[in-house]
């Protein structure tokens, strides 16, 4: 049982691995001796992440706006890398704009990456040929699902959808030995957030500052999201499923 968190010999597929939280997750899993498989749109970013790892990682550039192609992507990955033990779904679009500008096409595009491709990924992962017994899925959601923030309608809803679907998938997939959980990060030091905060500043919005006020432990370092994800991927958390773990510096509790 020691070390408590052990990912040795586990095949972990990470979406959104080219930067930010996905990259941090890849580094943590690699340090825990997992065999990581990296996917994202940006091949240069993927190679960059790959260069930070100790082990040789497989990389697959893929655009998750193409939900229909995920089934053959997963099949290809399993053929080339072996059955999977875990998925980390970090891909996500944050595009916040006034409700007046959130037309159906915009909402649809955002939901494709943040939600539909997540569900499709888990659906394909759950096929018998694609996963090992005792496997685990972690969706990176967001505290946004619990916060009524203006201009966040589509984003917050997509994360709420991810959490809700994860609970249902957890109860359905446990018979296959698959656990499904989410991690909801608060404001985490990534390019995406730096951009968002500077946008807030430029537009005179105080949303970013207000979030950090409630997040009383301050800006989260991405590796700590990786640690929580690694715990949920490991067998040490084998009794945890259908759970959404806030790693939010206290934000949602106050």
């Amino acid at each position, binding site marked *: *049982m*020691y*070390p*408590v*968190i*052990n990912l*040795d010999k586990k095949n972990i597929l990470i979406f959104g691995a080219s930067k930010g939280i996905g990259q941090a997750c890849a580094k*943590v899993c690699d*340090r*825990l*001796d997992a065999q990581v498989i990296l996917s994202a749109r940006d091949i240069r970013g993927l190679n960059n992440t790959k260069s930070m790892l100790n082990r040789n990682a497989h990389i697959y550039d893929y655009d998750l706006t193409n939900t229909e192609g995920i089934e053959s992507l997963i099949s290809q990955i399993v053929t080339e890398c072996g059955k999977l033990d875990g998925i980390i779904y970090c891909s996500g679009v944050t595009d916040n704009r006034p409700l007046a500008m959130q037309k159906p096409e915009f909402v649809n595009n955002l939901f494709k990456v943040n939600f539909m491709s997540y569900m499709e990924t888990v659906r394909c992962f759950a096929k018998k040929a694609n996963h090992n017994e005792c496997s685990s899925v972690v969706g990176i959601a967001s505290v946004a699902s619990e916060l009524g923030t203006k201009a966040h309608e589509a984003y917050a809803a997509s994360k709420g959808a991810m959490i809700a679907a994860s*609970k249902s998938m*957890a*109860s359905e997939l*446990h018979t296959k030995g698959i656990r499904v959980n989410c991690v909801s990060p*608060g404001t985490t030091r990534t390019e995406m957030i730096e951009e968002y905060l500077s946008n807030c500043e430029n537009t005179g919005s105080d949303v970013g500052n207000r979030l950090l006020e409630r997040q*009383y*432990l301050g800006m*989260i*370092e991405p590796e*700590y999201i990786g*640690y*929580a994800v*690694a*715990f949920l991927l490991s067998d*040490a*958390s*084998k*009794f*945890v*499923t*259908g*759970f959404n*773990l*806030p*790693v*939010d*510096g*206290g934000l*949602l*509790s*106050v």
Partner: protein
Amino acid sequence: MINLIDFTGKNIIVTGASSGIGKSISVSLSKLGANVVLIARREEELKSVKNLLEDGNHMIIPYDLKNLDGIKDMVDDVVSTVGKLDGMFYAAGIGNAHPVKLLSNDILKELFEVNYYPFIELIRCISRKGKYNSGARIVGVSSIAAKCGDAGLTGYSSTKAAMEAAIRSMSRELSSKGIVINSLAPAMTNTIMYTDYVERYGENSNSEKRLLERQYLGIADVQDIVNCGLFLLSDISKYIAGVTFYADGGYTSVQ
């Protein structure tokens, strides 16, 4: 491989250390390098738990936590013996079920006297200057009962809900000192509480069948809960604060 969860040289109090989750986490903490301060009422049981620990600067304190007035001196004594504290795991608790018509004020009081008041008093005493190290992490063992109502659990669930509410406020307040607090909420776990439950309802009872429909991963092994406790006590959960961590085999997600 790196060892992400490591307590080398950390001083950690465990209450309810003579049995169940408290006993098992004490053993695990010692294997991961901690000096464990074991608190429970029964001295003989504490001694035998201490024998199970890996070597370290451990300490046993036979103490009835209902005695609130003595907690401050006890904490002072602990700190002067093992040094400043890095954490506490509060597993002391009684889980007796009482239908509402039998829930006298005395029974209600007793539940709070074990499950709630000493938890607050311990944190009050530990968070005094000179008694803790910055980065100290505290975990209170709550229960799914704090969220999900059930017949007979009026008193018990109230104590756990009170604990969780207090944790959110205390964690916010004490964060300025570098102390962070979370709740760990297990579902039915294979401890004396489960034995009592089986005794009450019989084996394979309808009650248990209903329970397992929701707690679909089965009855928890103690170690499964302990692992979540170790995670929450460790530095890698540094940004997790005021959270209720459900280790419940799916229970709270299917309601």
